[in-house]
């Protein structure tokens, strides 16, 4: 699978624009791309999930990684989250710890 996500930093906000899936095929590549931000002060990580239809446990690990490992314990934000993805977040108990926004 080619790179189907985009990461950009604006001030203390890290935005991750996701493609159709965040799963075993692309989660390692995204993890690698997030590594350089580990020691930077990030206040919010915004996952743009407008196109996302599949989130597996490999992807869930990335969300937890952002909260645990990025300096500043950033707020995790999901933008335009669809029901299938929301169901997975609910199963793994992450919904109460994520801010959901619709744009």
């Amino acid at each position: 699978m080619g790179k189907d996500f985009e990461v950009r930093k604006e001030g203390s906000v890290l935005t991750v624009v996701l493609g159709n899936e965040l799963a075993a095929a692309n989660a390692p590549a995204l993890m690698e791309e997030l590594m350089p931000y580990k020691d930077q002060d990030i206040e919010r990580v915004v996952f743009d999930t407008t196109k996302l239809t599949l989130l597996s446990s490999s992807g869930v690990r990335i969300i937890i990684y952002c909260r645990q490992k990025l300096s500043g314990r950033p707020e995790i934000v999901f933008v335009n989250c669809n029901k299938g993805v929301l169901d997975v977040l609910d199963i793994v108990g992450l919904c109460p710890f994520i801010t959901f926004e619709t744009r």
Partner: protein
Amino acid sequence: MNRLHFHSIRGKALAIVDAILHTEEVATAGEAFGAIRLVVEELVMNIADYAYPDGYNDYLDVEIERDETYITLRFRDGGVPFNPLEQTPPDISLPMEERRIGGLGLLIVIKMMDAVTYEYTDGENVLTVKSKIENL
């Protein structure tokens, strides 16, 4: 019934997932496809990564059955005995910063499927998952 056999599975999880998802039974499962796709990835990744720590004689057989109401997938491997239904589930009440990573995939499998059963028989782990499908 459709039967798929994979050998030397280490490092081939994604290709195995792809082959399962392209069977007619799964590809035409309608609204159930999304959940099955997720569950197949979680299970195949687990088996390919952990079932054969010594890496010898590793294989995975997958049987897929469909009737008017259900799709059933049965995963057989000859690796170390592992009953996913007897594992301590992760504590999902903990805030993210206190979470451990393990166990989330199996939790997703158990919650997404209508039935999950396990048995160890004839030297094989046999895990069966069943999902209701819409009438197509």
